[in-house]
Protein backbone atom coordinates (compact mmCIF):
# COMPACT_ATOMS: atom_id res chain seq x y z
CA UNK A 1 0.00 0.00 0.00
CA UNK A 2 1.47 3.34 -1.04
CA UNK A 3 1.15 6.36 1.26
CA UNK A 4 0.86 9.99 0.16
CA UNK A 5 4.58 10.42 0.85
CA UNK A 6 5.39 7.40 -1.33
CA UNK A 7 3.30 8.90 -4.13
CA UNK A 8 5.18 12.17 -3.83
CA UNK A 9 8.55 10.44 -4.07
CA UNK A 10 7.39 8.48 -7.13
CA UNK A 11 6.27 11.70 -8.73
CA UNK A 12 9.68 13.27 -8.08
CA UNK A 13 11.80 10.48 -9.44
CA UNK A 14 9.64 9.04 -12.19
CA UNK A 15 6.89 11.58 -12.90
CA UNK A 16 4.38 8.93 -11.90
CA UNK A 17 0.77 9.73 -11.03
CA UNK A 18 -0.90 6.54 -9.86
CA UNK A 19 0.17 3.12 -11.12
CA UNK A 20 2.84 3.11 -13.80
CA UNK A 21 1.85 2.06 -17.29
CA UNK A 22 3.45 -1.14 -18.61
CA UNK A 23 5.57 -3.43 -16.47
CA UNK A 24 6.81 -2.23 -13.10
CA UNK A 25 8.36 -3.09 -9.77
CA UNK A 26 8.18 -0.69 -6.84
CA UNK A 27 10.65 -1.26 -4.03
CA UNK A 28 10.13 0.48 -0.71
CA UNK A 29 12.38 0.34 2.35
CA UNK A 30 14.12 -2.81 1.20
CA UNK A 31 11.01 -4.72 0.06
CA UNK A 32 9.36 -5.18 -3.31
CA UNK A 33 5.83 -3.94 -2.63
CA UNK A 34 4.11 -3.91 -6.01
CA UNK A 35 4.98 -5.65 -9.24
CA UNK A 36 3.43 -6.27 -12.63
CA UNK A 37 4.69 -8.31 -15.57
CA UNK A 38 3.14 -7.91 -19.01
CA UNK A 39 3.35 -10.08 -22.13
CA UNK A 40 6.95 -9.96 -23.37
CA UNK A 41 8.28 -8.33 -20.17
CA UNK A 42 8.64 -10.54 -17.13
CA UNK A 43 9.76 -9.33 -13.71
CA UNK A 44 10.87 -12.05 -11.29
CA UNK A 45 12.24 -11.62 -7.74
CA UNK A 46 15.72 -13.07 -7.31
CA UNK A 47 16.17 -16.05 -5.07
CA UNK A 48 18.70 -15.94 -2.28
CA UNK A 49 19.49 -12.22 -2.62
CA UNK A 50 17.50 -9.01 -2.84
CA UNK A 51 16.58 -7.77 -6.30
CA UNK A 52 14.78 -8.69 -9.49
CA UNK A 53 15.37 -10.14 -12.93
CA UNK A 54 13.73 -8.31 -15.79
CA UNK A 55 13.45 -10.41 -18.93
CA UNK A 56 12.39 -8.68 -22.11
CA UNK A 57 11.66 -11.05 -24.97
CA UNK A 58 13.17 -10.36 -28.39
CA UNK A 59 11.27 -7.84 -30.47
CA UNK A 60 9.24 -6.45 -27.53
CA UNK A 61 8.51 -2.74 -27.33
CA UNK A 62 7.49 -1.17 -24.04
CA UNK A 63 8.15 0.73 -20.84
CA UNK A 64 9.40 -0.64 -17.53
CA UNK A 65 9.36 1.33 -14.27
CA UNK A 66 11.57 0.17 -11.39
CA UNK A 67 11.55 2.97 -8.82
CA UNK A 68 13.02 2.60 -5.35
CA UNK A 69 11.88 4.65 -2.38
CA UNK A 70 13.31 4.90 1.10
CA UNK A 71 11.21 6.63 3.71
CA UNK A 72 12.79 5.35 6.93
CA UNK A 73 15.96 6.31 8.72
CA UNK A 74 18.72 3.84 9.55
CA UNK A 75 18.17 1.73 6.44
CA UNK A 76 20.89 0.21 4.34
CA UNK A 77 19.23 -1.16 1.23
CA UNK A 78 21.36 -3.23 -1.12
CA UNK A 79 19.77 -4.55 -4.27
CA UNK A 80 20.91 -6.52 -7.35
CA UNK A 81 18.92 -6.23 -10.55
CA UNK A 82 19.59 -8.09 -13.75
CA UNK A 83 18.01 -6.75 -16.91
CA UNK A 84 17.99 -8.62 -20.16
CA UNK A 85 16.78 -6.76 -23.25
CA UNK A 86 16.22 -9.36 -25.95
CA UNK A 87 17.32 -8.97 -29.57
CA UNK A 88 15.67 -6.13 -31.48
CA UNK A 89 13.52 -5.12 -28.50
CA UNK A 90 12.96 -1.43 -27.83
CA UNK A 91 12.62 -0.55 -24.15
CA UNK A 92 12.30 2.57 -22.05
CA UNK A 93 13.51 1.69 -18.55
CA UNK A 94 12.79 4.23 -15.84
CA UNK A 95 14.71 3.59 -12.65
CA UNK A 96 15.52 6.13 -9.98
CA UNK A 97 15.62 6.38 -6.26
CA UNK A 98 13.96 8.77 -3.87
CA UNK A 99 15.00 9.03 -0.24
CA UNK A 100 12.93 10.73 2.41
CA UNK A 101 14.99 10.45 5.56
CA UNK A 102 12.92 11.54 8.54
CA UNK A 103 15.51 10.77 11.22
CA UNK A 104 19.14 11.15 12.16
CA UNK A 105 20.39 7.76 11.01
CA UNK A 106 21.67 7.15 7.50
CA UNK A 107 19.35 6.13 4.71
CA UNK A 108 21.34 4.35 2.06
CA UNK A 109 20.55 2.59 -1.19
CA UNK A 110 23.20 0.74 -3.14
CA UNK A 111 21.75 -0.48 -6.42
CA UNK A 112 23.69 -2.84 -8.61
CA UNK A 113 22.33 -3.09 -12.15
CA UNK A 114 23.58 -5.57 -14.65
CA UNK A 115 22.10 -4.83 -18.05
CA UNK A 116 22.41 -6.75 -21.30
CA UNK A 117 21.24 -5.07 -24.47
CA UNK A 118 21.24 -7.86 -27.01
CA UNK A 119 21.93 -7.59 -30.75
CA UNK A 120 20.00 -4.86 -32.52
CA UNK A 121 18.02 -3.91 -29.40
CA UNK A 122 17.53 -0.41 -28.11
CA UNK A 123 17.47 0.68 -24.48
CA UNK A 124 16.66 4.11 -23.15
CA UNK A 125 17.46 4.22 -19.45
CA UNK A 126 16.44 7.09 -17.16
CA UNK A 127 17.65 7.28 -13.60
CA UNK A 128 16.74 10.15 -11.36
CA UNK A 129 17.88 10.57 -7.77
CA UNK A 130 16.06 12.65 -5.28
CA UNK A 131 16.53 13.22 -1.58
CA UNK A 132 14.68 15.09 1.15
CA UNK A 133 13.83 14.78 4.84
CA UNK A 134 13.64 16.68 8.08
CA UNK A 135 16.30 14.75 10.00
CA UNK A 136 20.04 15.21 10.02
CA UNK A 137 20.52 11.67 8.75
CA UNK A 138 22.57 11.38 5.58
CA UNK A 139 20.95 10.36 2.31
CA UNK A 140 23.34 8.13 0.43
CA UNK A 141 23.04 6.60 -3.04
CA UNK A 142 25.68 4.44 -4.66
CA UNK A 143 24.50 3.12 -8.00
CA UNK A 144 26.63 0.63 -9.84
CA UNK A 145 25.79 -0.20 -13.43
CA UNK A 146 27.41 -2.78 -15.64
CA UNK A 147 26.11 -2.61 -19.18
CA UNK A 148 26.76 -4.68 -22.26
CA UNK A 149 25.75 -3.22 -25.63
CA UNK A 150 25.91 -6.01 -28.19
CA UNK A 151 26.45 -5.78 -31.93
CA UNK A 152 24.27 -3.17 -33.58
CA UNK A 153 22.46 -2.40 -30.32
CA UNK A 154 22.09 1.03 -28.76
CA UNK A 155 21.83 2.33 -25.22
CA UNK A 156 21.09 5.83 -24.02
CA UNK A 157 21.52 6.53 -20.31
CA UNK A 158 20.23 9.65 -18.67
CA UNK A 159 21.46 9.99 -15.10
CA UNK A 160 20.12 12.88 -13.09
CA UNK A 161 20.75 13.94 -9.52
CA UNK A 162 19.64 17.44 -8.60
CA UNK A 163 20.07 18.39 -4.92
CA UNK A 164 19.08 16.38 -1.91
CA UNK A 165 21.55 13.47 -1.97
CA UNK A 166 24.41 13.84 0.51
CA UNK A 167 26.78 11.26 -0.77
CA UNK A 168 27.04 9.52 -4.10
CA UNK A 169 29.56 7.27 -5.69
CA UNK A 170 28.38 6.35 -9.15
CA UNK A 171 30.16 3.57 -10.92
CA UNK A 172 29.28 2.85 -14.54
CA UNK A 173 31.01 0.29 -16.73
CA UNK A 174 30.00 -0.28 -20.31
CA UNK A 175 31.22 -2.57 -23.06
CA UNK A 176 30.15 -1.65 -26.58
CA UNK A 177 30.52 -4.29 -29.28
CA UNK A 178 30.83 -3.84 -33.04
CA UNK A 179 28.41 -1.27 -34.46
CA UNK A 180 26.94 -0.61 -31.00
CA UNK A 181 26.05 2.90 -29.93
CA UNK A 182 26.19 4.34 -26.44
CA UNK A 183 25.21 7.76 -25.11
CA UNK A 184 25.45 8.78 -21.46
CA UNK A 185 24.04 12.10 -20.31
CA UNK A 186 24.80 12.94 -16.73
CA UNK A 187 23.32 15.92 -14.85
CA UNK A 188 24.36 16.70 -11.33
CA UNK A 189 23.82 19.49 -8.83
CA UNK A 190 25.37 19.35 -5.38
CA UNK A 191 25.08 21.88 -2.59
CA UNK A 192 25.82 22.25 1.11
CA UNK A 193 28.43 19.72 2.15
CA UNK A 194 27.40 17.07 -0.37
CA UNK A 195 29.90 14.90 -2.17
CA UNK A 196 29.52 13.18 -5.50
CA UNK A 197 31.84 11.04 -7.49
CA UNK A 198 31.20 9.51 -10.87
CA UNK A 199 33.41 6.93 -12.51
CA UNK A 200 32.45 5.99 -16.03
CA UNK A 201 34.42 3.44 -17.97
CA UNK A 202 33.48 2.73 -21.54
CA UNK A 203 35.15 0.01 -23.51
CA UNK A 204 34.67 0.45 -27.25
CA UNK A 205 35.43 -3.18 -27.89
CA UNK A 206 34.23 -3.58 -31.45
CA UNK A 207 34.80 -1.81 -34.74
CA UNK A 208 32.41 1.01 -35.64
CA UNK A 209 31.23 1.24 -32.05
CA UNK A 210 30.49 4.76 -30.82
CA UNK A 211 30.13 6.43 -27.43
CA UNK A 212 29.24 9.88 -26.18
CA UNK A 213 29.60 10.71 -22.50
CA UNK A 214 28.27 14.16 -21.70
CA UNK A 215 28.39 15.33 -18.13
CA UNK A 216 27.06 18.65 -16.91
CA UNK A 217 27.23 19.68 -13.30
CA UNK A 218 26.80 22.54 -10.88
CA UNK A 219 28.56 22.58 -7.50
CA UNK A 220 27.38 25.03 -4.83
CA UNK A 221 28.21 25.66 -1.18
CA UNK A 222 31.17 23.62 -0.03
CA UNK A 223 30.16 20.54 -2.01
CA UNK A 224 32.71 18.42 -3.82
CA UNK A 225 32.49 16.66 -7.16
CA UNK A 226 34.82 14.28 -8.92
CA UNK A 227 34.38 13.04 -12.48
CA UNK A 228 36.48 10.31 -14.01
CA UNK A 229 35.10 9.30 -17.38
CA UNK A 230 37.35 7.00 -19.35
CA UNK A 231 36.94 5.90 -22.96
CA UNK A 232 39.00 3.00 -24.21
CA UNK A 233 38.96 2.02 -27.90
CA UNK A 234 40.17 -1.44 -28.74
CA UNK A 235 38.98 -1.35 -32.33
CA UNK A 236 37.92 1.27 -34.85
CA UNK A 237 35.66 3.00 -32.37
CA UNK A 238 34.68 6.63 -32.10
CA UNK A 239 34.11 8.37 -28.79
CA UNK A 240 33.54 11.78 -27.32
CA UNK A 241 33.64 12.67 -23.65
CA UNK A 242 32.66 16.08 -22.37
CA UNK A 243 32.59 17.37 -18.77
CA UNK A 244 31.24 20.84 -18.30
CA UNK A 245 30.80 22.31 -14.82
CA UNK A 246 29.63 25.50 -13.19
CA UNK A 247 31.42 26.16 -9.94
CA UNK A 248 29.99 28.44 -7.25
CA UNK A 249 30.67 29.56 -3.69
CA UNK A 250 33.44 27.48 -2.09
CA UNK A 251 32.78 24.29 -4.00
CA UNK A 252 35.46 21.99 -5.37
CA UNK A 253 35.27 20.22 -8.72
CA UNK A 254 37.78 17.80 -10.22
CA UNK A 255 37.30 16.58 -13.77
CA UNK A 256 39.63 13.94 -15.13
CA UNK A 257 38.49 12.71 -18.54
CA UNK A 258 40.69 10.03 -20.04
CA UNK A 259 40.86 8.68 -23.56
CA UNK A 260 42.80 5.61 -24.44
CA UNK A 261 43.23 4.15 -27.95
CA UNK A 262 44.66 0.81 -28.91
CA UNK A 263 43.88 1.06 -32.59
CA UNK A 264 45.24 3.56 -35.14
CA UNK A 265 41.78 4.01 -36.66
CA UNK A 266 40.11 4.95 -33.37
CA UNK A 267 38.89 8.53 -32.98
CA UNK A 268 38.56 9.79 -29.43
CA UNK A 269 38.00 13.33 -28.19
CA UNK A 270 37.69 14.75 -24.73
CA UNK A 271 36.75 18.18 -23.46
CA UNK A 272 36.48 19.43 -19.92
CA UNK A 273 35.63 22.88 -18.61
CA UNK A 274 35.00 24.36 -15.18
CA UNK A 275 33.92 27.96 -14.77
CA UNK A 276 31.65 30.28 -12.90
CA UNK A 277 28.50 31.82 -14.34
CA UNK A 278 29.62 34.76 -16.46
CA UNK A 279 28.63 38.12 -14.99
CA UNK A 280 27.34 39.32 -18.36
CA UNK A 281 24.81 36.47 -18.41
CA UNK A 282 23.40 37.50 -15.03
CA UNK A 283 23.30 41.17 -16.08
CA UNK A 284 21.46 40.32 -19.31
CA UNK A 285 18.72 38.45 -17.46
CA UNK A 286 18.46 41.23 -14.88
CA UNK A 287 17.78 43.70 -17.71
CA UNK A 288 14.81 41.47 -18.49
CA UNK A 289 13.48 42.00 -14.97
CA UNK A 290 14.83 38.95 -13.13
CA UNK A 291 16.52 39.39 -9.76
CA UNK A 292 20.13 38.28 -9.48
CA UNK A 293 19.02 35.07 -7.76
CA UNK A 294 16.32 34.35 -10.34
CA UNK A 295 18.84 34.98 -13.13
CA UNK A 296 21.27 32.53 -11.53
CA UNK A 297 18.54 29.90 -11.21
CA UNK A 298 17.42 30.36 -14.82
CA UNK A 299 21.00 29.87 -16.02
CA UNK A 300 21.56 26.81 -13.84
CA UNK A 301 18.30 25.14 -14.77
CA UNK A 302 18.97 25.78 -18.46
CA UNK A 303 22.47 24.38 -18.10
CA UNK A 304 21.20 21.23 -16.39
CA UNK A 305 18.21 20.67 -18.66
Amino acid at each position, binding site marked *: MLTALDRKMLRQIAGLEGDPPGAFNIRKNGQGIERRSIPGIEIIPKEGKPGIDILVKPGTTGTVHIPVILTASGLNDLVYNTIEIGESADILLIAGCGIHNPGHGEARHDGVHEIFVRRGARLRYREKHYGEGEGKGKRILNPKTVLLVEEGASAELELVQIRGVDDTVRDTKVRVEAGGRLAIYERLLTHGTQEARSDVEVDLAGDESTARVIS*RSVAQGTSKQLFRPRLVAHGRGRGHVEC*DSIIMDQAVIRSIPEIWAENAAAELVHEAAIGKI*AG*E*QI*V*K*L*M*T*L*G*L*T*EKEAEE*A*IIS*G*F*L*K
Partner: protein
Amino acid sequence: MLELDKIVLKFKADDHELTALKEISLHFETGKIYVITGPNGSGKSSLARVIMGIHRPGSGRVIFDGEDITGLGITERSRKGIGYAFQHPARFKGLRVADILEIAMRNGEHNDCHYLSELGLCPEDYLERPLDASLSGGEIKRIEIATLLALNPRLRIFDEPEAGIDLWSFEQLIEVIGASHRPDTTTIIISHQEKILQMADQIILLEDGAVSLHGPREQVWPVIRDSVRCACRQDCSRGGMYYVNCPR
Protein backbone atom coordinates in the same frame (compact mmCIF):
# COMPACT_ATOMS: atom_id res chain seq x y z
CA MET B 1 10.31 60.80 -19.37
CA LEU B 2 14.04 60.45 -18.68
CA GLU B 3 16.32 63.06 -17.30
CA LEU B 4 20.07 62.80 -16.76
CA ASP B 5 21.38 65.43 -14.40
CA LYS B 6 25.12 66.07 -14.34
CA ILE B 7 26.13 62.44 -14.67
CA VAL B 8 29.78 61.74 -13.91
CA LEU B 9 31.22 58.26 -14.43
CA LYS B 10 34.79 57.31 -13.63
CA PHE B 11 36.64 54.05 -14.16
CA LYS B 12 39.82 52.93 -12.49
CA ALA B 13 42.41 51.97 -15.10
CA ASP B 14 45.63 50.53 -13.67
CA ASP B 15 47.14 53.38 -11.67
CA HIS B 16 45.02 56.23 -12.96
CA GLU B 17 41.38 57.21 -13.11
CA LEU B 18 39.53 57.61 -16.36
CA THR B 19 36.52 59.89 -16.63
CA ALA B 20 34.11 58.26 -19.07
CA LEU B 21 31.24 60.71 -18.64
CA LYS B 22 31.77 64.35 -17.72
CA GLU B 23 28.72 66.00 -16.17
CA ILE B 24 26.25 64.85 -18.79
CA SER B 25 22.79 66.45 -18.62
CA LEU B 26 20.15 65.36 -21.10
CA HIS B 27 16.38 65.29 -21.33
CA PHE B 28 14.54 62.56 -23.26
CA GLU B 29 10.88 63.03 -24.16
CA THR B 30 8.20 60.39 -24.58
CA GLY B 31 7.42 59.42 -28.16
CA LYS B 32 10.72 60.53 -29.66
CA ILE B 33 13.62 58.65 -31.26
CA TYR B 34 17.09 59.72 -30.15
CA VAL B 35 20.27 58.65 -31.86
CA ILE B 36 23.47 58.99 -29.88
CA THR B 37 26.53 59.09 -32.08
CA GLY B 38 30.19 59.93 -31.69
CA PRO B 39 33.65 58.42 -32.04
CA ASN B 40 34.66 55.12 -30.43
CA GLY B 41 35.42 55.62 -26.76
CA SER B 42 33.35 58.80 -26.52
CA GLY B 43 31.14 57.31 -23.77
CA LYS B 44 28.03 56.22 -25.71
CA SER B 45 27.75 52.72 -24.26
CA SER B 46 28.77 53.98 -20.81
CA LEU B 47 25.86 56.42 -20.92
CA ALA B 48 23.44 53.66 -21.93
CA ARG B 49 24.74 51.47 -19.11
CA VAL B 50 24.24 54.27 -16.60
CA ILE B 51 20.60 54.56 -17.73
CA MET B 52 20.11 50.79 -17.40
CA GLY B 53 21.78 50.75 -13.97
CA ILE B 54 24.71 48.54 -15.00
CA HIS B 55 27.15 51.34 -14.15
CA ARG B 56 26.55 53.52 -11.11
CA PRO B 57 27.52 57.16 -11.66
CA GLY B 58 29.99 58.76 -9.25
CA SER B 59 27.72 61.76 -9.07
CA GLY B 60 24.60 63.09 -10.77
CA ARG B 61 21.03 61.84 -10.88
CA VAL B 62 18.90 59.67 -13.17
CA ILE B 63 15.23 60.67 -13.13
CA PHE B 64 12.66 58.39 -14.78
CA ASP B 65 9.01 59.48 -14.95
CA GLY B 66 9.73 62.08 -12.29
CA GLU B 67 11.25 59.55 -9.89
CA ASP B 68 14.90 59.58 -8.85
CA ILE B 69 16.11 56.09 -9.81
CA THR B 70 19.83 56.74 -9.34
CA GLY B 71 19.98 54.30 -6.43
CA LEU B 72 17.96 51.53 -8.13
CA GLY B 73 19.53 48.37 -9.55
CA ILE B 74 19.12 46.81 -12.98
CA THR B 75 16.15 44.61 -12.06
CA GLU B 76 14.11 47.46 -10.59
CA ARG B 77 14.81 49.67 -13.58
CA SER B 78 13.77 46.91 -15.93
CA ARG B 79 10.53 46.48 -13.99
CA LYS B 80 9.91 50.22 -14.27
CA GLY B 81 10.10 49.98 -18.05
CA ILE B 82 13.72 50.43 -19.15
CA GLY B 83 15.25 47.93 -21.56
CA TYR B 84 18.65 47.57 -23.21
CA ALA B 85 19.86 45.57 -26.22
CA PHE B 86 23.58 45.04 -25.72
CA GLN B 87 26.21 45.86 -28.30
CA HIS B 88 27.89 42.52 -27.58
CA PRO B 89 25.13 40.13 -26.44
CA ALA B 90 25.96 37.50 -23.83
CA ARG B 91 26.06 33.87 -24.88
CA PHE B 92 24.62 31.22 -22.61
CA LYS B 93 25.51 27.58 -22.29
CA GLY B 94 22.24 25.75 -21.86
CA LEU B 95 19.64 28.46 -22.46
CA ARG B 96 17.80 28.18 -25.75
CA VAL B 97 16.56 31.05 -27.89
CA ALA B 98 13.01 30.17 -26.79
CA ASP B 99 14.04 30.38 -23.11
CA ILE B 100 15.30 33.94 -23.25
CA LEU B 101 12.33 35.09 -25.29
CA GLU B 102 10.00 33.48 -22.76
CA ILE B 103 11.76 35.29 -19.92
CA ALA B 104 11.45 38.58 -21.83
CA MET B 105 7.75 38.24 -22.51
CA ARG B 106 6.59 36.50 -19.38
CA ASN B 107 4.28 39.44 -18.68
CA GLY B 108 3.39 40.17 -22.28
CA GLU B 109 0.82 38.98 -24.77
CA HIS B 110 2.73 38.18 -27.93
CA ASN B 111 4.26 34.89 -28.97
CA ASP B 112 7.97 34.46 -29.48
CA CYS B 113 7.69 33.47 -33.15
CA HIS B 114 6.51 36.93 -34.06
CA TYR B 115 9.70 38.74 -33.05
CA LEU B 116 12.11 36.29 -34.62
CA SER B 117 10.37 36.28 -37.97
CA GLU B 118 10.23 40.08 -37.97
CA LEU B 119 14.02 40.03 -37.84
CA GLY B 120 14.34 37.47 -40.60
CA LEU B 121 14.99 34.46 -38.35
CA CYS B 122 12.70 31.53 -39.04
CA PRO B 123 11.28 30.49 -35.62
CA GLU B 124 11.25 26.81 -36.56
CA ASP B 125 14.99 26.95 -37.14
CA TYR B 126 15.91 29.06 -34.13
CA LEU B 127 13.61 28.56 -31.11
CA GLU B 128 15.24 25.32 -30.00
CA ARG B 129 18.80 26.41 -30.72
CA PRO B 130 21.16 27.03 -27.81
CA LEU B 131 22.07 30.66 -27.26
CA ASP B 132 25.77 29.83 -27.40
CA ALA B 133 28.82 30.13 -29.59
CA SER B 134 27.13 28.08 -32.32
CA LEU B 135 25.21 31.21 -33.38
CA SER B 136 26.94 33.69 -35.67
CA GLY B 137 27.48 37.32 -34.64
CA GLY B 138 24.63 38.50 -36.85
CA GLU B 139 22.25 35.83 -35.54
CA ILE B 140 22.90 36.54 -31.87
CA LYS B 141 22.57 40.26 -32.49
CA ARG B 142 19.17 39.81 -34.12
CA ILE B 143 18.05 37.56 -31.27
CA GLU B 144 19.18 40.25 -28.81
CA ILE B 145 17.03 42.81 -30.61
CA ALA B 146 14.09 40.39 -30.79
CA THR B 147 14.43 39.95 -27.01
CA LEU B 148 14.16 43.69 -26.39
CA LEU B 149 11.15 43.90 -28.71
CA ALA B 150 9.57 41.00 -26.80
CA LEU B 151 10.21 42.76 -23.48
CA ASN B 152 8.50 45.82 -24.94
CA PRO B 153 9.73 48.42 -22.42
CA ARG B 154 8.67 52.06 -22.48
CA LEU B 155 12.28 53.20 -22.76
CA ARG B 156 14.25 51.15 -25.28
CA ILE B 157 17.98 51.45 -25.76
CA PHE B 158 19.62 49.76 -28.76
CA ASP B 159 23.41 49.75 -28.58
CA GLU B 160 24.83 49.66 -32.12
CA PRO B 161 22.05 47.37 -33.38
CA GLU B 162 23.59 47.24 -36.86
CA ALA B 163 26.97 45.84 -35.76
CA GLY B 164 27.65 42.50 -37.45
CA ILE B 165 24.39 42.54 -39.40
CA ASP B 166 24.34 42.03 -43.15
CA LEU B 167 22.87 44.43 -45.65
CA TRP B 168 19.52 42.71 -46.09
CA SER B 169 18.93 42.35 -42.34
CA PHE B 170 20.03 45.94 -41.80
CA GLU B 171 17.17 47.29 -43.91
CA GLN B 172 14.76 45.01 -42.05
CA LEU B 173 16.22 46.06 -38.71
CA ILE B 174 15.59 49.74 -39.40
CA GLU B 175 12.06 48.95 -40.46
CA VAL B 176 11.34 46.87 -37.35
CA ILE B 177 12.80 49.39 -34.90
CA GLY B 178 10.88 52.19 -36.61
CA ALA B 179 7.59 50.28 -36.78
CA SER B 180 7.76 49.17 -33.13
CA HIS B 181 8.31 52.71 -31.87
CA ARG B 182 5.04 53.98 -30.41
CA PRO B 183 3.85 57.39 -29.21
CA ASP B 184 4.15 56.20 -25.58
CA THR B 185 7.70 54.84 -25.93
CA THR B 186 11.07 56.50 -26.11
CA THR B 187 13.75 54.94 -28.30
CA ILE B 188 17.46 55.60 -27.88
CA ILE B 189 19.77 54.14 -30.53
CA ILE B 190 23.54 54.27 -30.36
CA SER B 191 24.83 54.24 -33.91
CA HIS B 192 27.23 55.60 -36.48
CA GLN B 193 25.07 54.67 -39.43
CA GLU B 194 23.62 57.35 -41.66
CA LYS B 195 20.39 55.42 -42.23
CA ILE B 196 19.83 55.11 -38.51
CA LEU B 197 20.71 58.76 -37.94
CA GLN B 198 18.00 59.56 -40.48
CA MET B 199 15.42 57.90 -38.18
CA ALA B 200 16.18 60.33 -35.35
CA ASP B 201 13.97 63.08 -34.07
CA GLN B 202 16.97 64.27 -32.08
CA ILE B 203 20.67 63.58 -32.54
CA ILE B 204 23.14 63.67 -29.64
CA LEU B 205 26.84 63.86 -30.44
CA LEU B 206 29.14 62.65 -27.69
CA GLU B 207 32.84 63.44 -27.78
CA ASP B 208 35.32 62.61 -25.09
CA GLY B 209 32.65 61.91 -22.47
CA ALA B 210 30.70 65.12 -23.01
CA VAL B 211 27.74 66.23 -25.15
CA SER B 212 29.21 68.37 -27.90
CA LEU B 213 26.05 68.73 -29.95
CA HIS B 214 22.37 68.02 -29.28
CA GLY B 215 19.34 69.03 -31.27
CA PRO B 216 16.78 68.15 -33.92
CA ARG B 217 18.10 66.00 -36.75
CA GLU B 218 17.57 68.77 -39.31
CA GLN B 219 19.99 70.97 -37.40
CA VAL B 220 22.59 68.47 -36.22
CA TRP B 221 22.84 66.28 -39.32
CA PRO B 222 24.29 68.92 -41.67
CA VAL B 223 27.00 69.64 -39.11
CA ILE B 224 28.10 66.04 -38.52
CA ARG B 225 27.39 64.62 -41.99
CA ASP B 226 30.92 64.90 -43.28
CA SER B 227 32.49 63.20 -40.28
CA VAL B 228 29.94 60.34 -40.39
CA ARG B 229 30.51 59.81 -44.12
CA CYS B 230 34.23 59.91 -43.56
CA ALA B 231 33.92 57.14 -41.00
CA CYS B 232 31.83 55.25 -43.54
CA ARG B 233 34.62 55.37 -46.06
CA GLN B 234 36.96 53.93 -43.45
CA ASP B 235 34.56 51.04 -42.86
CA CYS B 236 34.43 50.41 -46.60
CA SER B 237 38.13 50.42 -47.05
CA ARG B 238 38.63 48.06 -44.12
CA GLY B 239 36.08 45.71 -45.61
CA GLY B 240 34.06 46.00 -42.41
CA MET B 241 30.77 44.26 -41.94
CA TYR B 242 28.67 47.39 -41.61
CA TYR B 243 26.34 48.40 -44.36
CA VAL B 244 27.45 51.80 -45.45
CA ASN B 245 26.40 54.31 -48.05
CA CYS B 246 29.65 53.77 -49.80
CA PRO B 247 30.25 55.80 -52.96
CA ARG B 248 31.96 52.77 -54.53
